[in-house]
């Protein structure tokens, strides 16, 4: 890290220029990708890319602590929280691209371009003096982390303490919001068993029919009369297994195997 920092001199070396242009390109491409991708998961991955390249830019600007915190907090914690919630509410929900307000999309883009132009004009009017760099401030306390610690625990101590109250409030708020109220009392084990007997079917569901030739849980089991039953298949697979059906040739082949015979592939294939 110290070698990396030493490479950043006050005027900005060629190496920094290369890092800047590469990371800036990646960041902007990631941001635009987040904007235009229809699936929320793709958006999350694009913005994670943007955040990592921003972390690299922090480090090249003499802020290694913030760069690491950016990677750990943003890409590590915040984006993974986003992905958790996305998985909870369904990844398949592709957004409909129908405009609900007429002309809103064009208006928003025009507005943002105007706003960006305003910012560009403001930045262009500023003369940036590079006589002072960050290296002196970093070296004053013996390093970037020490310098930030000095500021946080001295000048910004009150703000830091208030931050702890904020974090506790946020944690409590998230627990209260995510908590689901139970409106009916929980059923005891006795009530559950009584319900099961009264339902008319106290026995287990039939097991899936995994034959010697079909190593798949989607294969329906056979009832004693030889007919396949859909209830032996896990619910998400039911439609699929109904389409596949049971190949009765397979059961014959298994029976032949059990009787000590050998499989003669040609004969069965001619039958089917």
């Amino acid at each position, binding site marked *: 890290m110290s070698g990396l920092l030493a490479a950043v001199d006050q005027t900005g070396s060629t190496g920094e220029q290369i890092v800047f242009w590469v990371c800036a390109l990646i960041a902007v491409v990631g941001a635009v990708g987040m904007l235009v991708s229809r699936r929320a998961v793709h958006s999350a991955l694009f913005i994670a890319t943007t955040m990592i390249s921003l972390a690299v830019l922090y480090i090249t600007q003499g802020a290694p602590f913030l760069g690491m915190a950016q990677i750990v907090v943003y890409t590590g914690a915040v984006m993974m929280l986003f992905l958790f919630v996305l998985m909870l509410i369904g990844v398949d929900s592709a957004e409909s691209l129908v405009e609900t307000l007429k002309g809103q999309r064009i208006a928003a883009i025009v507005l*943002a371009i105007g706003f960006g132009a305003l910012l560009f004009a403001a930045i262009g009017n500023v003369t*940036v003096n590079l006589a002072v760099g960050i290296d002196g401030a970093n070296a004053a306390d013996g390093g970037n982390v020490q310098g*930030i610690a000095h*500021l946080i625990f001295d000048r910004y101590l009150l*703000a830091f303490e208030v931050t702890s109250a904020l974090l506790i409030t946020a944690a409590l708020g998230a627990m209260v919001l995510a908590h689901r109220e139970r409106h009916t009392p929980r059923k005891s084990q006795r009530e559950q068993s009584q319900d099961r007997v009264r339902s008319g079917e106290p026995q287990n569901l039939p097991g899936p029919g995994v034959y010697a030739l079909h190593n798949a849980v989607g294969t329906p089991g056979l009832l004693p009369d030889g007919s396949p039953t859909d209830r032996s298949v896990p619910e998400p697979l039911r439609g699929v297994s109904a389409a596949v059906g049971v190949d009765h040739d397979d059961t014959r082949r298994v029976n032949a195997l059990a009787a000590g015979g050998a499989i003669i592939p040609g004969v069965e294939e001619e039958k089917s």
Partner: protein
Amino acid sequence: MNPANYLYLSAILFSIGAVGVLVRRNAIVMFMCVELMLNACNLAFVSFSRINGNLDGQVIAFFVMVVAAAEVVVGLAIIMTIFRTRRSASVDEANLLKY
């Protein structure tokens, strides 16, 4: 290199985030756009810190990160609660208070 380039990049990212908040309808993607805007501000703070030669900008960026983390936790919990009752994360669906 002119450090104002970092500020230009920050302005571009902020504008893209603003377009996203205005255009996208999925609440989670809107949230990601807000995060992008916060990140752009952080980049500007770090650049200001470097230009001015003191670490205060970096400390402010650090506090912005903390607030953003708290905001994400509460916001995502709200989105989940809305999803439970309305079965949708689209901001157009939450219109019970409209009329």
